[in-house]
């Protein structure tokens, strides 16, 4: 979404007209859902977290500074919502139903059955490794690898200095690698 259009929509929402919130929700829902699934590990809890985050974001809009970008601010609220839900034990990172809820990307349909089976196995392994590495490592990997954010954006979302992002990413990637090792995964 164009930044000027986004600012205009936020201005209307700040004036109390909730109708103008819909384009913002529609625009940020797909990346928000990816982040929430990455942190919660299942679709139901991810949807709950996403919904609550959108409501909290709207309610906080009167305090939002229009000079700041909306995206990192929203993702920060969503990330905090996911963490709160995980800590209040209303939800836990749960992969039990993930395979039934998610589909491989459409591009996979063009590949052969053997390759699709390999991708499904790989996805399963990667997500089980993510389950093992803990919340802090998982969130930064999801922000970088699934969302593709730059370091500055990740720093804004996590509320940490930009220089710390690289350090945390290194530890997260190393933890993921160790988790895969522990699961018996061998590199060629």
């Amino acid at each position, binding site marked *: 979404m164009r930044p000027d259009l986004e600012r205009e929509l936020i201005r209307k929402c700040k004036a109390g007209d*909730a109708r103008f*919130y*819909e384009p913002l*929700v*529609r625009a940020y*829902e797909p990346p928000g*859902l*990816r982040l929430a*699934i990455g942190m919660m590990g299942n*679709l139901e809890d991810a*949807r709950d977290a*996403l*919904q609550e985050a*959108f*409501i909290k974001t*709207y309610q906080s809009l009167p305090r939002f500074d229009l000079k700041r970008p909306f995206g990192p601010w929203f993702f920060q609220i969503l990330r905090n919502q996911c963490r709160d839900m995980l800590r209040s034990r209303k939800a836990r990172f749960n992969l039990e139903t993930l395979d039934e*809820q*998610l*589909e*491989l*990307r*459409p591009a996979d349909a063009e590949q052969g059955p053997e390759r699709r089976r*390999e*991708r499904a*196995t*790989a*996805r399963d*392994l*990667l997500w089980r490794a993510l389950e093992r590495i803990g919340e802090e490592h998982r969130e930064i*990997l999801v922000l*970088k*690898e*699934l969302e*593709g954010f*730059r*370091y500055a954006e990740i720093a804004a979302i996590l509320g940490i200095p930009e*220089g710390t992002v*690289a*350090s945390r*990413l*290194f530890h997260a*990637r*190393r933890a*993921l*690698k*160790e988790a*895969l*090792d522990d*699961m*018996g*995964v*061998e*590199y*060629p």
Partner: protein
Amino acid sequence: MTWVLSTREEHPQGYRSREIGVVPERVTHEELMCFIDGELSPEEARRVEAEIVASTELQREVAVFRAMKADFQDLTFDPGDRHHSVWDSVNRRLTRPIGWLLLIVGVAIWTAYGGYVFATSPTNPWEKLATGAVAIGILLLLASVIWDRYRESLNDPYHDVYR
């Protein structure tokens, strides 16, 4: 078990995972991450690249991290048709409280005004008492039913299920 995310064809140099974390001092872990993620300036990237070319250890490190990164990105998934937009739920939660607030304020004003008119009217006191008792009884029963339904809706595990 064989790691299927990255085949030897995709990463012909091959790599082993156990050595991760052994980075020569001239390139820090942070610089290595910035290099892999394309966050270095061109000058810094050239310096780190020169160090990588000179070190087989670093080459192995970079190959492992790049392979992991590629695998991760390739595995992004999509909930497809199973996900309905949350907008309807969000919109309901945002707009309903305003409606309820207006309704409650309106009813309160009308009730207070009606009570005042009724109390100050020259009607027989027994008629007033009986009418008042009926009205209060109906209001209490209505409030009780509404309260019960509200409490049930809070605990309803299927309240977000789409029909």
